[in-house]
């Protein structure tokens, strides 16, 4: 009968849980809270070997309820979490971390810092791999808060530097350095592990740059961007590029950094900077690359209505057409796109909509369409007709230009 009792207990436990779940999914937090008080009984005979035991459920559900309940307050929340921390050793760090997140999101930075320091000093036997990761995260977040304190002191100092000097500055400076040390150690630690650490990397590089350790910063950023164990994070390349730019590095190294970003994410917004950089270059190869970059960017749906990108393309195409050199570049780029760009970019529907919504976009696109598809292209015809009707000089010039260079179209498409 004890087996039966266990079964019944299990059944009622499940039923109770499903009631709680139902209430929560319908945002009936009060009802869920009432059910949860009954569910707490399930802790008494916790025979389960399931991955998520009742104590974890109570923590999760209770947290969620307290986050949404109309009458909950921070004090109650803290009280609940403190109890949950004692409920399971394996989960202690996780609960601490979540508690800290909650405090941070509610603007209680100091309390969060205290909790982090407390969790950091926690020891219990041998740590599992997951606990190890959690501990590293706790340290990293504490370091992040240290970094914020550091930058606060830095701001005070810079403000003071303008008006005051003396002892106050010295103590502030010392405090700032101690924050730096505390932050740097742990930040350096976490960014060695493969992962996405945008926030930590940025802070660490900022610290290093302030103290003039550019080599270390450069190394950290390179490691973050190019280590194959790390995911292909576009931000890693962006940070490196921004760092190089701040350092006033040569065009060449900037271009090589952006070239890699282009290979990973052809649709990144930095591609416009990249294109303008390449267009200005004297080397033919680079200008060729610029054309490739801008064509590739405009392949993406997200760039469809980007005026900047279209004007970049229009400018470069116009240049090539006027100089009548390197028409083959356009031809090559166009070859792989001529079967779908007309429908994707240059349909009559889009001509109408672009004209209504954004005249300058339709101007740039009409120029490109006129050159790539000839003067009989629907898009060009519609926009130039509308433009001439509206007596805008720009559009009359456009029409003339395209008509004059119509043979180019034949050469491109031929």
């Amino acid at each position, binding site marked *: 009968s004890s087996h039966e009792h266990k079964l019944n207990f299990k059944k009622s436990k499940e039923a109770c849980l499903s009631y709680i779940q139902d209430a929560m999914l319908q945002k009936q937090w009060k009802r869920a809270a009432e059910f949860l008080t009954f569910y707490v009984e399930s802790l008494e005979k916790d025979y389960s070997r399931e991955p998520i035991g009742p104590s974890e459920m109570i923590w999760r559900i209770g947290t*969620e309820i307290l986050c949404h309940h109309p009458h909950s307050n921070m004090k109650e929340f803290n009280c609940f979490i403190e109890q949950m921390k004692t409920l399971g050793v394996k989960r202690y760090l996780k609960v601490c971390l979540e508690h800290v997140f909650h405090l941070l999101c509610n603007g209680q930075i100091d309390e969060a810092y205290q909790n982090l320091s407390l969790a950091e000093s926690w020891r219990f036997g041998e740590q599992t791999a997951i606990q190890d990761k959690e501990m590293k995260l706790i340290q990293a977040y504490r370091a992040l808060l240290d970094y914020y304190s550091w930058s606060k002191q830095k701001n005070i100092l810079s403000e003071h530097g303008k008006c005051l000097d003396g002892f106050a500055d010295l103590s502030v400076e010392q405090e700032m350095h101690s924050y730096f040390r505390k932050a740097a150690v742990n930040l350096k630690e976490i960014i060695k592990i493969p992962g996405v650490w945008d926030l930590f990397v940025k802070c660490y590089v900022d610290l290093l740059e302030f103290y003039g350790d550019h080599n270390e910063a450069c190394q950290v950023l390179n490691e973050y961007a190019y280590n194959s164990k790390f995911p292909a994070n576009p931000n890693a390349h962006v940070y490196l590029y921004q760092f190089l730019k701040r350092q006033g590095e040569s065009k060449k190294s900037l271009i090589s950094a952006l070239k890699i970003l282009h290979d990973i994410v052809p649709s990144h917004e930095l591609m416009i900077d990249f294109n303008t950089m390449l267009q200005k270059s004297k080397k033919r190869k680079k200008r060729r690359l610029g054309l490739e970059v801008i064509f590739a960017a405009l392949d993406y749906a997200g760039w469809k209505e980007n005026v900047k990108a279209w004007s970049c393309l229009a400018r470069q195409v116009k240049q090539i057409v006027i100089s009548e050199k390197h028409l083959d570049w356009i031809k090559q780029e166009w070859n792989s796109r001529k079967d779908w760009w007309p429908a994707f970019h240059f349909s009559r529907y889009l001509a109408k909509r672009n004209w209504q919504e954004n005249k300058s976009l339709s101007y740039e696109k009409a120029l490109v369409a006129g050159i790539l598809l000839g003067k009989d292209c629907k898009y060009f015809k519609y926009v130039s007709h509308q433009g001439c009707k509206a007596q805008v000089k720009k559009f009359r010039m456009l029409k003339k230009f395209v008509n004059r260079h119509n043979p180019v179209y034949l050469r491109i498409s031929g």
Partner: protein
Amino acid sequence: MEFPAALFPCYFGAGPPREEGGPPLAAGWGEHGQVLEGSPGPGRPQAQPAFVPCRGGTGETWDPAEAAAVPVLPPSAGRWIPSPAPQDILYRNSVCRKLRAGRRGATLDFAKQLGHFFVDHPEDAFGSMGRLLHKNFYLGNSKLKRPARSSTIRMTALMKDIDRLEAWRSVCCHVPCPAQLWEAPLSPHLTLSVPSRGCHRQHLASRLRWFSHLCRDWLFEVPLGLLADCLHEELLLQWSDLLFDDRLTGGALAWLPPSNVGSCTGCLVYPGGQAMNHLFFQDMVLEELPRPRGSPSQFELSGRIRQVAAARVDGEDFVGVRSDYHCGVWRVPGRTGTAPAPLQVIRTDVPASCLTVSPHLPGELTVCTQSGTVYLWSVETGLQQLRHDPQTMFFRDHSLWRWSDFTAHPRVLSCADRTGLQCLDARAPKKCHFDLFKVGEEAGCQQGERVVLPMYLGRAHPSQHLVTTQFSTYMLDERLPLVPVLKWAHMMQAPPLFAQLMPGDPGRTHKVLLGASRTQELLLLQYRGERWSSRRGSQLACQLAGAPLKLHSIAGCLQHLPTQLPHRHHLLQQRLGAPAAGLAAALQEDRTCETMLVFQLSEAGDVFCQRLTHEAAHPPAPTSRDEAPTAPGSSPLFEAPASSPPTPAVPSPAAALRYHRWLRALFRGCREHPQHSLPPSLSQRRLFTRKELEGPTGPTALQRQVRQWLRQVMREGGHIQRWEPLALQPPALSQPPEPEGGLDLLSTRLTAAWSGDWEQWWEDRTSFSVAQRQRALRERRQRQKRARGRRSLSASFTSSLTYQSELSELSDAGPPLLSPERPHVLSQEGSPPAGSPLASPALDEVLLSSQSLRCRGIPKERRKTLRDYLSVWAEAPPEPPELPGSQASQLCIPSSQSQLSSASQTRRKRPRMGF
């Protein structure tokens, strides 16, 4: 479309999934995941950094406006045949247990299905063999003669044995084990499933076993081994479909939003018809409850519609329709009132598992088949094969399901199987591809997790994708492959097969609806992710916003429907509980409020809708630090009533009207085809002419009179204590009067049981009945003594046959007169003894009416003598009735009087008694 300046921190590892675990029950709750520095809010001091959580941020408030989902379309004509249930396929005992155990533990009821085959297709199973053998199988009942017996079997005897065995088996408590059933499945009746242990009907079985042993190898038209193989395969297939049917992935319902902003007429595309092979385009007007406008355009297709996908390109809607072996594409012009035009159809050799419509280029779709082939299908240029690989991508998985969708680049497609997603370039599919999602440590998956539904979220953000597994939902960004930008355990009971996106305007959340098939679950999620038109510098990583909201399921409306008769209730339950087959959603903005309409399609072809209203942002609750400390032990959580607006408890009048109409149409539809469900029957009218069916000659005078009287009493509002015509007849007495006044046996017993002293009642009853029986016996003996003379007299009238038949007719004509349900009316002391067979009460009554006497041919003068004679002995003092006083006055009618006043004229004049 900028990339977020910083992403939420996370670890990254490669390899197979490490985390163990089953379905996470509450895993989606209570976690912020990670935090990131966000823009400080208006109320926060600038010096402090502000953090935003990955999960658990604030979302928009959407509240259900109705108590349950409401039907939007009349129920589809034609009967719906429910798909097989577990109890059809599995052994009865093991259904519950095995459903939980899943695929491995299930025991399929193979023998039953084989039996069904033999019954349903006997021609295929035994046809020509039967013709060959018919000489040797004797089907008559008589014994076989000598010479024939050597070459002929008497099948009737065999059948009898089987029936007996069956009857015994149904009584027998232990169910045969499957192995035994496997052994000798000969025909439905020949399944020899005799439990070996302790069978006392062995001798019965031995003959059958002998027969089956002889015939097992050659009796069948189709070789049994082959048939069994096919059947078993089919059973396994059905069972796996029952566990998880992935052919429905994507859903067969689409909503084409209004083409211009001000209009509120959209189009609903859904399958219908008995085989779900008709495609309907129905214009819908979005009001409080959407209603259809005009009749739908309809297309008949040659297969069951599994999926309807739609996308809008250049102001025109393209609708792709997938059935198992055919895919088609329709164009719906933007102008309302123009009919949808079919563009192209393709046929596949292997069932197609996916069809998606390009949001970038008109008339472009992708098709996947179960053979692992992915095609790019353009209406203009035809099919282009991008990949052919029967193997799964990242590790081995047996599922044949494949999926593909579009990405931010119109020439790059995503391809998915159960193990993950890959993107490939249609211009060079062999060379250019990258992994977008992998079931593994990269995304922090669990062991056993599989991709269920990928979806391109292009309308909200050009490079984001949604991937759902049976446990979690992942948000992916093409620009950062393999690392989900958002992960959340959805906690749904069944894997979500349908998803719908409702993009939000800048600054608002995007909404995603997830829908499961078998459980009809619907979940509304909200997330924030920058959109292409967002301002520069404000881009933030993807976050889940607010708590998920569970929406109504179709089955949930059952409790709001009017009460039905049990069989109708069952029918409704089955109908409304049918698995979901599609999901569509529409956002609509009015001047005053914003509403979300969610359409859900069931496998039965019903389309239900529910409305949610957006509650505009209200001022945030006071922060924690301002609140006064509460007394220890008392929690404010349970005291004050919650302020959250509750879901309405009852359907609105409009919804109730919809329910009413829908139910009426449903049951009307069900009545139209009764012959499908009922066993074949013959109408009486075919067997008999109308005249034959009619009663003898209309109602008799007695009946007419009683009716008239009844009407009169009803007019007066009184009640009939006893039938007056009864006064003429000595009523039947078959049981002694009840001791309790007025209450019949059952009522008293129930009353006693209700008050709890039933046992007491029973004892009283038994002791009473002993005394009663003794008394009854005594009475009977006395009565018999008295009646002896009369019986001999009345026997003299019972000579002719016509009399007998007339008698039965008469007694038939007046059932209320003899109704045993009116014991107090019938309980007449002094009536002729019940025990004597001839002197039945009706008989006496008939005998005494002058009419009947006349028609027996008794002369007038003798009639008088007879009556006098009878009256004389009837006037003899009856046994003193042993009735409680109160009843006695009512019940003890001077029967002598009534018996004597036989003529109909006097009957009318007589004052009514007993009132």
